[in-house]
């Protein structure tokens, strides 16, 4: 369902089938949707068999990186005598992205079931769901669902009568975009400042509390119960372009479109049809100018690129961007791209954890230059300076926040240079400044 709108006939609702239906939140109603059948099935399988099914399905991480989920799970070594942890990343904070919020608000049991299956598959007795501090309603809904699941004996020391212990806890963040980075999230969970950690060691070796840990996005885990009950072959068959991109994906659509909201399509869906038909095209009397298709951290696309894109991991890369989190931000012809990119830079400057010099100084510096340009004080040197700073912000820091700030700036200048040049008054040309 194109929540908050009626479903579009070209959507394939799997995760979103119950979005907008508040009655589906309760355990009893969720059972009528087939709830917890997958967990029951899973608890009768070996963990290795579950990992194989997920591997076979082709499911890849929905948080942005697109790493194969089954492969990630297989990094956890059973029987090493250490506590294992499953973390669910519900710190959804990437500008343009609001899909995990809807999964938690409308289908809390789907997420709990996915977490329970994942925990069992990686040999973790404990799962922590790290929910961003601002998501008070999703936290409330998830808390109620968690209580129901414990009361019904689905979770706890004897999960569904299996004799296996599965505990799930909700952990509330406190306002920090960077805690969506997996190792920053681990530090935050441990009661520290949310500074990302240097890798290696990777989480499967030393993650939360120094123990083997797997971390998955909300949407990834919510897809797992469907894969178990309907089978890996069913999931794998949902692929419209590249066979390495399988299943459905939630795309959050915002900005200047007629029907913003969440839409679920099979990977490989034509982006042109998605933008002009499924989400209703531009507002009346307007035309599209540019799209940031995967959350604010991916390069901006021209409409020419966007219209040639097939919506999967490989398709966005082929057209100058990335699938990322699936947060589609659309700007129409009335928008000042330099102003909006400056605002994004300010976001990253605010959210930098300030550990790495390139990021701490670079995000602030880029923001100052862009804001001066927006205010009418651009100079001819600015674009080269911005590109040079961005170069020094890319691939040089502990995490990719710095790179994420550079992405819209560099792609903006390369693809929409005229808009940036229009911010440089003629009187401030090199001749005038140095003459």
């Amino acid at each position, binding site marked *: 369902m194109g929540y908050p709108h009626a479903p579009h006939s070209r959507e394939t609702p799997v995760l979103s089938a119950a979005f907008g239906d508040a009655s589906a939140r309760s355990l009893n109603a969720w059972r009528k949707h087939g709830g917890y059948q997958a967990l029951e099935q899973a608890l009768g399988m070996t963990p290795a068999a579950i990992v194989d099914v997920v591997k076979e399905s082709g499911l890849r991480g929905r948080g942005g990186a697109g790493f194969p989920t089954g492969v990630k799970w297989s990094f956890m070594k059973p029987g090493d005598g250490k506590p294992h942890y499953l973390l669910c990343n519900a710190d959804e904070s990437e500008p343009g992205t609001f899909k995990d919020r809807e999964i938690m608000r409308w289908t809390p049991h789907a997420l709990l079931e996915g977490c329970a299956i994942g925990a069992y598959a990686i040999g973790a007795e404990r799962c922590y769901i790290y929910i961003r501090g*601002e998501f008070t309603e999703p936290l409330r809904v998830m808390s109620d669902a968690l209580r129901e699941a414990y009361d019904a004996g689905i979770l706890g020391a004897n999960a569904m009568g299996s004799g296996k212990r599965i505990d799930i806890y909700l952990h*509330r963040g406190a*306002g920090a975009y960077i805690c969506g980075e997996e190792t920053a999230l681990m530090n935050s969970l441990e*009661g520290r400042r949310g500074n990302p950690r240097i890798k290696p060691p990777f989480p499967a070796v030393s993650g939360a509390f120094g123990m083997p840990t797997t971390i998955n996005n909300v949407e990834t885990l919510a897809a797992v119960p469907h894969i178990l009950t309907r089978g890996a072959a069913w999931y794998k068959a949902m692929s419209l372009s590249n066979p390495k991109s399988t299943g459905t994906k939630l795309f959050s659509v915002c900005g200047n479109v007629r029907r913003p909201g969440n839409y679920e399509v099979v990977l490989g869906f034509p982006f042109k049809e998605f933008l002009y038909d499924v989400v209703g095209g531009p507002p009346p009397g307007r035309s599209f100018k540019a799209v940031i298709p995967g959350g604010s951290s991916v390069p901006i696309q021209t409409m020419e690129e966007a219209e040639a894109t097939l919506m999967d991991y490989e398709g966005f890369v082929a057209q100058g961007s990335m699938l990322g989190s699936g947060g589609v931000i659309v*700007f129409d012809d009335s928008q000042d791209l330099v102003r909006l990119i400056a*605002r994004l830079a*300010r976001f990253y400057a605010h959210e930098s954890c300030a550990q790495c010099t390139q990021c701490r*100084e670079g995000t602030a510096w880029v923001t100052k230059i862009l804001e001066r340009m927006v205010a009418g004080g651009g100079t001819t040197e600015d674009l080269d300076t911005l590109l040079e700073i961005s170069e020094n912000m890319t691939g040089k820091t502990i995490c990719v926040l710095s790179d994420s700030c550079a992405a819209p700036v560099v792609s903006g200048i390369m693809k929409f240079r005229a808009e940036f040049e229009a911010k440089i008054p003629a009187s401030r040309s090199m001749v005038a400044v140095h003459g």
Partner: protein
Amino acid sequence: MSAHEMGGTHAPSDAAHGSAAHPHGDGAGPVFQGALRTELDDVLARYPTKMAALLPALWIVQRERGWVSEEAMAEVAQLLDLTPAYVKGVVTFYTMYHQHPVGRYFIQVCTTSPCAACGAEDVVAALLRHTGCGELGATSPDGNYTVIEVECLGACGFTTPVMINDDFVESVTPERVPAILKELR
């Protein structure tokens, strides 16, 4: 480029942390007594380390007192075997812990790019005008409101989302602001 632009502070704006002097304590004594101490014990049971209870403990402080004073930080530090300086380091990292009292209604308006493309600045202006706050981060003279800009609230399809205390109000327009404020009173 001009020399003053190089480097500088990392956060261009952080209106949540106003410059007004604030007291060392909240004047209400220790937080974790009786039922709240029991609540903290329940929290501690969820984690393999005491330190992991820090964010939840600070949330309890803020829920009970409205903000996190240095006195409360010291109390939490003692309970969790941490130093007050460590706790303050954590408190200051996260934007949602108030380090000074705020208005009865703490209003956060998303103005990140997707919302900025849909008129969020006008919503901010309307809120400042109708609450009497005057400027971002300031509390209205009647003590009722504090308005700040917030980075992406994760509700970009419902522009402009505004968070009032613990509740989201979606699709806020300048025209809706007076009615929304009236409903609070």
